[in-house]
């Protein structure tokens, strides 16, 4: 462990995408939290390093309502969806406020998100005006998946590499500040547009924008949410649910030489832990929206503190010290070691006896976690384990009585060697365990099920290595 006191983490971002400086890598994404100058100044006061202004363009009329959420297991907003369009305020007002923000907060990054009609003149004009207002950089909104795309903007551009490249090139003709292209995930391969943006001369990328979604349907009115006078429209999905998708796309972009550019990571980031993951894949900054819409600007305090404390513990002085460390840990499946073997191990002292691992293994995996510690393990040539239903039927057929006397209660709650009665602590048949991880995923107790490495005694071998000879042998004859 490095000496925690020796490291003084510095979160400062210098010359991101060739020229953007800010006190920390936490930016507000272009969205409702960056709607006005007043809001952005409060966000900077709270500690945000930068803000991407709510997309500026020809003002729109929005509908009511605009948001809907996916709740899960009693938790609000696991996923969030919106059908709001770009700024409904005039370009003049937005840019006047931007100038004021830059005058008062010169150290924070203010990025102008832009979306205008697909003509060279329109883009040249808006770029000039935004930069004149003091924007530190530009973000081209090629990602908005609803409404604007029906008007030939947003993801309508972001889904066609040629358009994206062309408009990026127009912007670069005029721009004096770094140009970021915001990518839509609503495309088969996000690298196609990332490459186009790079060809067009972009200085950086932002990814991902929201994902096309219908969050749910009201089972009384049969109208999907959000309900706008009896009808709905697909929206853009974001929030914690989308983080895994965002991480994958970030990895795809940064692992691809023709796509890779300085990247501002977006998608389900709500804590320093999420942010650290995006940095480990190579992002230079991150952008946050949904978590702020849920809890307010104040969440940035823990994001900055938490990241600093983690960096201190790991001995990282600057973001650059760990940026991208995980990128080459993602590979194609064919390069994975087929002879790496792990098996599940259940800590009897931690097991609470929910037996979810048992039923998960039987019904969702490989039938190798058994409830036979009392009846005796079945090992041997033919293993005939009692099926889950048999165990359950036995319990249901048992006679249970309320323990009414002290003696009965003492017997009913007698403590054995482990906190859980032995017949409820599952046993892993390690010879059958394939090391799939499912049990450790369902176990509700931290550290109860661990996956332990077993020496298979065989050297590492990948699928590619194993089939190389075979592939040559079966090569069709010309």
């Amino acid at each position, binding site marked *: 462990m490095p000496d925690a006191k020796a490291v003084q983490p510095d979160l400062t971002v210098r010359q991101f995408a060739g020229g953007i400086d800010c006190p920390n890598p936490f930016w507000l994404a272009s969205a409702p939290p960056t709607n006005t100058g007043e809001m952005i100044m409060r966000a900077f006061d709270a500690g945000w390093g930068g803000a991407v202004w709510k997309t500026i363009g020809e003002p729109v009329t929005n509908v009511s309502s605009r948001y809907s959420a996916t709740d899960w*297991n*009693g938790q609000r907003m696991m996923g969030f969806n919106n059908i709001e369009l770009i700024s409904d305020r005039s370009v003049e007002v937005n840019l006047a406020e931007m100038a004021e923000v830059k005058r008062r907060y010169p150290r924070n990054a203010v990025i102008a998100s832009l979306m205008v009609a697909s003509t060279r003149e329109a883009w040249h004009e808006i770029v000039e005006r935004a930069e004149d207002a003091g924007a530190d950089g530009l973000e081209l909104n090629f990602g908005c998946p609803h409404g604007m795309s029906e008007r030939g903007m947003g993801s309508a551009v972001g889904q066609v590499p040629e358009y994206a490249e062309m408009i990026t090139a127009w912007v670069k003709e005029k721009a004096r500040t770094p140009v970021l292209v915001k990518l839509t995930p609503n495309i088969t391969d996000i690298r196609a547009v990332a490459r186009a943006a790079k060809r067009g001369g972009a200085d950086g990328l932002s990814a991902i924008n929201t994902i096309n979604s219908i969050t749910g349907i009201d089972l009384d009115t049969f109208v999907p949410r959000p309900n706008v006078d009896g009808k709905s429209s697909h929206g853009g999905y974001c929030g914690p649910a989308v983080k895994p998708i965002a991480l994958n796309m970030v990895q795809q972009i940064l692992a691809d030489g023709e796509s890779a550019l300085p990247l501002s990571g977006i998608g389900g980031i709500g804590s320093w832990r999420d942010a650290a993951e995006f940095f480990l894949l190579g992002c230079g900054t991150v952008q946050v929206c949904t978590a702020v819409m849920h809890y307010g600007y104040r969440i940035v305090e823990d994001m900055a503190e938490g990241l600093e404390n983690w960096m201190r513990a790991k001995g990282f002085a600057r973001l650059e010290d760990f940026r991208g460390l995980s990128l080459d840990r993602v590979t194609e499946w064919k390069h994975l070691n087929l002879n790496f073997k792990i098996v599940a191990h259940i800590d009897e002292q931690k097991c*609470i*006896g*929910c*037996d*979810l691992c*048992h*039923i998960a293994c039987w019904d969702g995996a490989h039938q190798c976690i058994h*409830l036979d510690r009392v009846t005796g393990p079945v090992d041997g040539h033919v293993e005939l384990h009692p099926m*889950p239903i048999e*165990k*359950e039927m036995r*319990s*249901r057929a*048992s*006679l*249970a*009585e*309320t*323990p*009414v*006397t*002290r003696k009965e*209660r003492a017997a*009913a*709650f007698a403590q054995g060697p482990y*906190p*859980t009665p032995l017949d*409820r602590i599952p046993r892993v048949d390690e010879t059958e365990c394939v090391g799939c991880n499912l049990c450790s995923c369902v176990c*509700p*107790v931290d550290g109860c099920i661990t996956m332990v490495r077993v020496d298979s005694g065989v050297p590492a071998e990948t699928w590619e290595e194993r089939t190389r000879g075979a592939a040559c042998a079966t090569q069709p004859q010309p």
Partner: protein
Amino acid sequence: MSTATIPDDPQLRERFGELKPPLTAQAAVIEANRCLNCFDAPCTAACPTHIDVPGFIKRIATDNLRGSAMRILDANILGGSCSRVCPVDVLCEGACVMQRQNHKPIQIALLQRYAMDFFHASGEVPATAAAARSVRVACIGGGPASLACAAELRRRGAQATIVERRALPGGLNTYGVAEYKLRAADSLREIEMISRMGVSFRYGVSVDSAAALEALEAEFDFIFLGVGLGAMQQLGIPGEGAAGVMNALELIAAYKTGHLRELHGTVVVVGAGNTAIDAANAARRLGASTVYLLYRRGEGDISAFDFEYEHAKQEGVQFLWRRQPVAVRPGERGHLLVDTVQVQQVGSALVPIPNSDYAIACDLVVPAIGQSPLTHLIQELRHVEVRDGRIVADPTTGRTGNPRYFAAGDCVNGGREVVDAVAGGKRAALAMLASAEAAHA
């Protein structure tokens, strides 16, 4: 249903407000989502009726309340009253695995009540089957064992008639449970559902002679004994018959039915079981300024559940340990005097300590030292063995020595909980049907 009713009494409602308020809809969903959905869940195994607890809880989480209630009723037709009266600390909630993780157990009782309240408010009645062949059963006693037995019989197409000596059905569920746990009105609402399932009720009928039993034998194929334990035991001390001595079950029945609305002064309760505590708490709530609970042994020996003991302390009941009443006699101005003595254990005997006697002046003496077996009826039964005051019956079937007689509940187990009576009554119903089927084959 009975034509008798219990008047709604706002004063009673106020003084015996529910101990635990019901869950709101959102709280129920949050709590339901907290449940881990264990496989072969320990809560289900611990429940004498083996309610599929995770099954009904997860249905609450998805707002399938009808399905949730059905899941409960499949196992326990008195799921509503059980959710209120079960000592869940030593049953389902006591078995909840969350406790091994330093989490509070899932509030199974409140969730069950939530689903059952929804169901009872809907007015729906569980489905009954069409009879394959006629099986007629008389259930003697209208308490939980008979109600569960009769309902199970109706669900499977048999005919069931409950014979009850009182004016209202439910036994201790209606007359004997503290009102702040289970209101008589809620007990009756549940029985109304059972009545609408086609169970017949005969009220004010005492089956206490050979002739009465023969009449039932002539009319029915099987007779189920759900007669409970009978009257409370006597203290066996002089003066016990005085006015101002009222046993615990009489006291509870009297206030629940509106016949006793007010108490004053000092009340002495004798005994330290759950019923003694119910009576002592009731005395406090009815207005007694001082309530003493006398117990001949120590704090560590009481048979009341821990949570009941804690509750009584909060209600202001004062416990006098190792003190025994020896006589009741008239005192000044219509008061009573209870002569008491301190006792100590010598070997297995309790021996009075010399010069430890004093008299407690009080207004009411409440013996609560357990119910005595209802022997007069059982003595009439041919080939139904009684041992230690309990009917001898196979615990898995309720079968007695007489193939036409089955029994369950307190009269067999010596006095347990409502849920034990329900489980026994249900098993007896299945055994009677199996017996009828075997006879037919």
